[in-house]
């Protein structure tokens, strides 16, 4: 019995570590903690409800397994005749209800925070098209389309003969990524030009539908520089899988330099 217990504790520990470990690339088990002020709260909520479910599951499954083992007819068990136990029923109705209240409070707090875009320092209009994204830095006069990059686009053709594993960031690379400065509250105004799309970057914990004729709002503040990738998350037709999102979070200086570069390009283009 003791050995059994230690083995189970060991398994739980390893599983717990594996699940809470940072993204492992292949074989990734868990949501990323992400790099924004809100993504960490989302991750914490997710982990809280996951642990809660795990603990309840252990209890409930234990009861089921014990029943299956101890009360087997083949082991000579004789059936009892009880059909009620009001006290038990009251307990297992009120305790879950209380647990849910405990879960709802932090969830509501995080939601209220995520829906508050006040104090944004930069606004980008995001438009979903079939099948690419368009970004418009409305205060800075920079706008461009962002499409699946050439290498991925060639490899993804039916029976292209190109091994996808030879393409860097296969299906997650674009020609013109979004660039934003770090530690800046960025507001996104999201809409669509044709059908429903959705803008999703897992490491920002943002997913918002792009609805044609309507504008949705989302915000994030990235606290780490780097490149973050996501995909369209609402079925939008044939190439729904082939319109990724790429965001480069850079320093303020790099951002301003990029902005200048783009402005210059746009002047020389007939855009």
């Amino acid at each position, binding site marked *: 019995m003791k050995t059994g217990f230690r083995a189970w504790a060991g398994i739980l520990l390893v599983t717990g570590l594996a699940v809470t470990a940072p993204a492992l690339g292949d074989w990734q088990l868990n949501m990323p903690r992400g790099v924004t002020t809100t993504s960490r709260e989302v991750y914490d909520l997710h982990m809280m409800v996951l642990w809660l479910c795990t603990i309840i599951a252990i209890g409930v499954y234990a009861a089921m397994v014990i029943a299956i083992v101890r009360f087997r007819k083949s082991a000579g068990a004789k059936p009892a005749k009880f059909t009620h136990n009001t006290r038990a029923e009251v307990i297992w109705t009120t305790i879950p209800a209380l647990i849910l209240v405990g879960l709802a409070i932090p969830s509501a707090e995080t939601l209220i925070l995520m829906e508050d875009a006040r104090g944004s320092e930069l606004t980008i209009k995001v438009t979903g098209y079939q099948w690419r994204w368009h970004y418009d830095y409305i205060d800075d006069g920079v706008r461009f389309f962002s499409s699946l990059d050439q290498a991925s686009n060639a490899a993804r053709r039916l029976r292209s003969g190109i091994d996808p594993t030879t393409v860097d960031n296969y299906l997650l690379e674009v020609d013109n990524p979004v660039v934003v400065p770090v530690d800046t509250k960025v507001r996104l105004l999201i809409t669509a030009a044709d059908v429903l799309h959705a803008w999703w970057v897992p490491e920002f*914990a943002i997913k918002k539908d792009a609805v044609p004729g309507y504008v949705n709002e989302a915000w994030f503040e990235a606290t780490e520089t780097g490149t973050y990738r996501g995909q369209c998350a609402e079925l939008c037709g044939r190439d729904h899988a082939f319109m990724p999102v790429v965001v480069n979070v850079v320093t303020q200086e790099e951002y301003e330099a990029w902005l200048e570069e783009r402005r210059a390009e746009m002047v020389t283009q007939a855009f």
Partner: protein
Amino acid sequence: MSTTAVDVHHEHRERGFLAWALRWITTTNHKEIGTLYLIFALLMFFVGGAMAMVIRLELFQPGLQFVEPHFFNQMTTMHALIMVFGMIMPAFVGFANWMIPMMIGAPDMALPRLNNYSFWLLPFATSLLLLTLFLPGGAPAAGWTMYPPLVLQGGDSFPFMIFAVHLLGVSSILGAINIIVTIMNMRAPGMALLKMPMFVWTWLITAYLLIVALPVLAGGVTMLLTDQFFGTSFFEAAGGGDPVMYQHIFWFFGHPEVYIIILPAFGIISQVIPTFSRKPLFGYASMVYATAAIAFLSMIVWAHHMFTVGMPLGGQLFFMLTTMIIAVPTGVKIFNWTATMWRGSLSFETPMLYALAFLFLFTIGGFSGLMLAIVPADFQYHDSYFVVAHFHYVLVPGAVFGAFAGAYYWLPKWTGVMYDEKLGKLHFWLTAIFVNVTFFPQHFLGLAGMPRRIPDYAAQFTDFNMISSIGAFGLGLAQLIFVWVVVKCALGRGEKATAQVWEGAEGLEWTVPSPAPLHTFDKPPHVE
């Protein structure tokens, strides 16, 4: 508990194929119609299953090896439409037809001709839907949810899909009316409402949900039709409409729909577990009230399918809270089933194996459902494989295992022959193992960031997709065993079944011979 003498007119052998075909086309007998529904559902299980095999084949590796993306979208759309409307709903209506009259001591359903019509709508409607695969542009490809504006890009298949959905809906509404009228009016003397078997209760409640939900779907798809052909713009901003309004209308149907799917399965589990525990159902009244609570709540949670559309904060909070509350009555049911087993005397024939697997695995689906209710977390889960994993857990080891449990439980009553227990157990173990191999890794894929409804994916999603596909191929193949089990019973190849069949079984259906004669309870039994 009386049974009738053999009815001479029905029991003599038909002469010729035409007479046999006409018998099955015009039958108004609840047992024969039940059989028609069940066979139809089994056929559709393989049609929808074949589409799933195409999906998992393409997803076996990154890159596109087998199908174009547009065809892949047709497969995901049709897989869901067939499985929901052509398989699982007809299967449970089949169970309702066979078992409700017997369980309440009635000679047949209240409206036998309507019953026949409700069934025959189905092959017609699903043929209409399936033939779109051969139209230019192919079958519908905008998802079973049919969201505009995408669905309006649908081409030739679009009106066929709308018409098929209408017909499927009419079939269900008529069936629901029949079930309610039967249960409310034809119970044997002494069978008060709170004495009815749980399967009858869950179907009574399901029937009301059908009547609330299906007309709304009909309205929604009609609005799609008029937007496409008659110049309305319900769902187009340029004309003053809103694509999101469609989502509200669809999911007002769609959420009760998933409870319509699962409640009959709950009812079957409530029959099977007491039988094989040799102990009465624990907390019968609570089970009834919990089912009613679930049904009521199911009508006020719909927008939890829409948390990312840009809903106001108040709406999101409301739907988050109501969705979380459903966990309470659902938990009560799980606890009551477990308490039924507690200090029982358990045996593990195939129906019980499926019921136990249901308890374990549906609970996993329930937990992922609770996680999905948490709005900020749902922003990450929505439209990812986490959702796909969730609903497949509640649908497959949930509803489908409930149907398998019921099938094995009642096959001896229907056919007069015990099914092959060894084959049944083999079917069970292969199915139970492969269902987890197929769907558990999909939780990880969703959490890692893989969207749904995509035919090709980034390299880091390869390993779990490969495992899931292997599981799917095994799951599909294992179902052939079930066909063989059913065929053997239909051919009479097995040990003869008694009326009682199962030692611990209670209820009026176990008082009639096996196979149940075509007409039972022509005179109502008296129930204490």
